[in-house]
C-alpha cells in the first residue's frame, strides 16, 4: 500500500513540504487561462457543481446533525478559485479560506474575486499563498473548519500520506474532509494521460503524472486506521464529451472519484 507505507513519516517535520516544485511551475504557466470557460480549465469548471452536490449529499446523509449555516470552509490547492468562489457564494457559508502554493494562480484568484461584490465582502473569501504544512493549525478543536476540501490535488502531491496528516487537524469534530482525485488504474492512465492530454487535448499536456494517482481503496484503508474518522462516502464520475460529467456507480474503482470522510469525534 502506497499510502500506508508513507504515513510513518507523518507530521513530525512540518517544514518539509509535500509540494512538488515542478507542479508549481506547471500551474504558474496555466494561470492566465484559469477562468476562461472554454480554456484548459473547462473540465474543472464543469465538474465544480458536482462537488457541491457531493458535499450536500454527505452532509444530509449524516446520522448526527451537521450545522446548516455559518459554515467555514478551508479549500486546499484552490488554484484560480473555482471552488473557493462558489463555496463563498452559498447562502450558508460564513467564510472560505483558500490556500495554494502557486503564487501566479493566486494572483489570478485575487483579481477574479474583485469582479464579484459578494466575494469582496470583508472576511468572506481569503486567499493565502501557502502550503498546508505552513498554515497554522487550530489551537482548539472548535477552531477547525466545517468543510476542508481537496479537489484534484492529491494526484499532484509527492507523498499523499504525510500530506493528509497535515490536513486532518484542520477539520472540526463533526466536520468533513472532501476530496476528488483519480484512481491509479490502466483505464485512468489511458483516459487522463493518453486520451485527454495527447489525443483529445482537452487537458493541458503534463498536467497528470499517473504514478502519483491514489486509489479509493488506499484512501479507505488509510482512514480505517485513523481513530475518530468514519462515515466514508464515495462517488465515481466520468466525463462524457458533449454531455459533461456524469455520476457512474462503481467508476470510483477506475476513474475520477469523490471521497469524503467525517471527523466523528
Amino acid at each position: 500500500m502506497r499510502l500506508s507505507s508513507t504515513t510513518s513519516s507523518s507530521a513530525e517535520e512540518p517544514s518539509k513540504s509535500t509540494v512538488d516544485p515542478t507542479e508549481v511551475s506547471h500551474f504558474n504557466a496555466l494561470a492566465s487561462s484559469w477562468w476562461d470557460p472554454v480554456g484548459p480549465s473547462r473540465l474543472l469548471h464543469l465538474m465544480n457543481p458536482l462537488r457541491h452536490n457531493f458535499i450536500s449529499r454527505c452532509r444530509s446523509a449524516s446520522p448526527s446533525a451537521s450545522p446548516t449555516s455559518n459554515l467555514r470552509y478551508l479549500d486546499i490547492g484552490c488554484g484560480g478559485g473555482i471552488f473557493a468562489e462558489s463555496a463563498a457564494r452559498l447562502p450558508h457559508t460564513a467564510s472560505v479560506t483558500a490556500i495554494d502554493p502557486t503564487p501566479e494562480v493566486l494572483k489570478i484568484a485575487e483579481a477574479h474575486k474583485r469582479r464579484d461584490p459578494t466575494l469582496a465582502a470583508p472576511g468572506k473569501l481569503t486567499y493565502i499563498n501557502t502550503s498546508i504544512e505552513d498554515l497554522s493549525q487550530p489551537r482548539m478543536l472548535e477552531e477547525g473548519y466545517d468543510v476542508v476540501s481537496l479537489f484534484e490535488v492529491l494526484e499532484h502531491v509527492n507523498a499523499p500520506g504525510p500530506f493528509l496528516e497535515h490536513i486532518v487537524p484542520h477539520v472540526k469534530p463533526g466536520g468533513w474532509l472532501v476530496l476528488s482525485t483519480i484512481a491509479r488504474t490502466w483505464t485512468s492512465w489511458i483516459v487522463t494521460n493518453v486520451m485527454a492530454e495527447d489525443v483529445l487535448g482537452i487537458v493541458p499536456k503534463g498536467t497528470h503524472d499517473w504514478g502519483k494517482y491514489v486509489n479509493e481503496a488506499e484512501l479507505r484503508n488509510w482512514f480505517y486506521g485513523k481513530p475518530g474518522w468514519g462515515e466514508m462516502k464515495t462517488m465515481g464520475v466520468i466525463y462524457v464529451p458533449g454531455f459533461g460529467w456524469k455520476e457512474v456507480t462503481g467508476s470510483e474503482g477506475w476513474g475520477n472519484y469523490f471521497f469524503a470522510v467525517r471527523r466523528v469525534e
Partner: protein
Amino acid sequence: MPPRIPLRAHQAIPPPAVRFRLRLQRRYASTSPSAPEIYDVVCVGGGPAGLSLLAGLKASPITNGLKVALIEGQDLQRNRLQKDANLDSFSNRCSSLTPASVKNLQEIGAWRHANTSRIQPYQEMQVWDGVSDARISFDWDTARSLGPRKPTQPTTIAYMIENVNTVSALLGRLEELGGVDIFSSTKVDSIELGKDTEQLDLSSWPVLSLSNGRSLAARLLVGADGANSPVRTFAGIPSRGFDYSRHGVVATLKLSGPGWGGPDHKIAYQRFLPSGPMAMLPMPGNFATLVWSTTPERAAKLKSLSSTDFVAMVNAGFRLSPTDLEYLHTLPSGQEEEVAWREQHTPVNERSIPVRVADVQAGTVASFPLRMRHADTYTGERVALVGDAAHTIHPLAGQGLNQGQGDAAALVRTISHAVETGQDIGSTLALESYNSARYAENNAMLGVCDKLHRLYSVESGPIVGLRSLGLRAVDAMGPLKGFFMNRAAGGA
C-alpha cells in the same frame, strides 16, 4: 470618447448589430459620478416573458434571495385588466396558451391571479387547405394512440387568453410575492460596462443608466425587451431573419352563436389560404378572436372597410374560393352584397366551418407586420435573452408567447441550479445550460412554422396535391396526430 449606446435612438432604426462589442466598452475609473446599485438580476421589459421569469425567481425558495429589478418603459398599472371588466368586450391581442405554459404559470403561483371568466379553453381544432379543402381535425379523442382516453386525461388543447390578462395575473403574483424593485414608466437611457476601481472590478458588469437618474449594475442582465431588444444590441448578439411581407390582421369578433360544439366544446379554426392562414379562435360566450395573415395591401384594404363589409369579408374568408377572395379585395366597398351573392353559388358544409360572424367589436381591427427573427445565441457574458428578444415567430401556430414562457421557465431552472452550486449566475458557464435547453427547441419550432407558411403559399401544381395528401394522411393516423398535438400542447 468611448462608444456609448443611446438606446432610444436604436429602437427607431435597425441597429448595426455587431458594432458595439462588450469588450470594446471596457472603461476605467476616472469619471465615476457615484457607484451603481448592485443587483443580481435586472430584467428589461415587463411583458409576459420577463414577468414570468421574475415571478418564477421569487416563487422559488432557492432563488428568492436574489436582488432583482424590473425596468419597463410603459406604465405597468395602465396595462392591467380592470377588476370589473365585463364580458361584452375583449382585447384584440390574445394568445393560445399551451397546457405546458399554463402548468408553469400554476407552478409559479400566477395562474390563480388570472381572471378565469375571460379565459376560453378549446377542445378541438379544425385545419384545412383553402385550395383543395383537404382537412385535418385535432382533438384528444381521435389523437389517442393506445386505447380509449382515460377520464383523467386532458381534453383541452389550449387556452385562449387576452395578453393583458396574462400580464395582470403575473403582476398580481409579483405584488403578492414582493421583493422586486419595479421601475415602471422608466426608460433605459444607456447600458455600458462598469468600471474597474480600487475596491471592485465591474468591468464585466452591465451598468444601466435609467431615465429616473438611477444607475444599476447587473450580475445578470435579462433582455425581455422585445424584437428590437436594446439589451441584445448591447451584448452584440446578431439576430437574423426576414420579413414575410405579410401582415397579421387581428380583430375581436362577435359570432351568431357559441359555436358548433356548444359552450363546453369550443373549436379553433384555421384555413390556409395562398396569401396566408386565417384563424378564428374561440373566446368566452359568443366571442372569437381573428388572426388573418395576408399581404400588406390586403391588410390595408381590410382595415379600411366598414364594419359590415369587414364582417362579410371574414365570413367569406372561411367560405369562398381564393379566386373569389382575390376579387373581393379589389372592390373599394360593397363587399357585403357581393359576398351574399357569391355565397349562394358556393356550397359549403356549415358545420365544418366557424359559425357566422355577426359583428366586429369597434376599434379592434388592427394589423402588424409578420417577421421571423432568431438571435445567434441567447446568452453572452452577464446577458440572457428571453421571449421576442431572442426569437420572433410566424403566428400561425400561436407559439410566440408560449416560447417566451418556456424561455422564462428554463432560465429560472438554470439560475436556480447556479445558485445551488455557488456559480456566478451571470457567467457564460452558468448560462450555457439555458442556451442549450432552449435554442434547438425554438429553432425547430421556428423552422416548422416557417415551412408551413411556405408550403401553403402555393396555389396550384403538384405541391397542392401532395400537401392535401399529407394532411389527409396525418388526419387518418391517430398516433401521428397525437404526436403533433403533444408538441402543440408543449408535452414530450
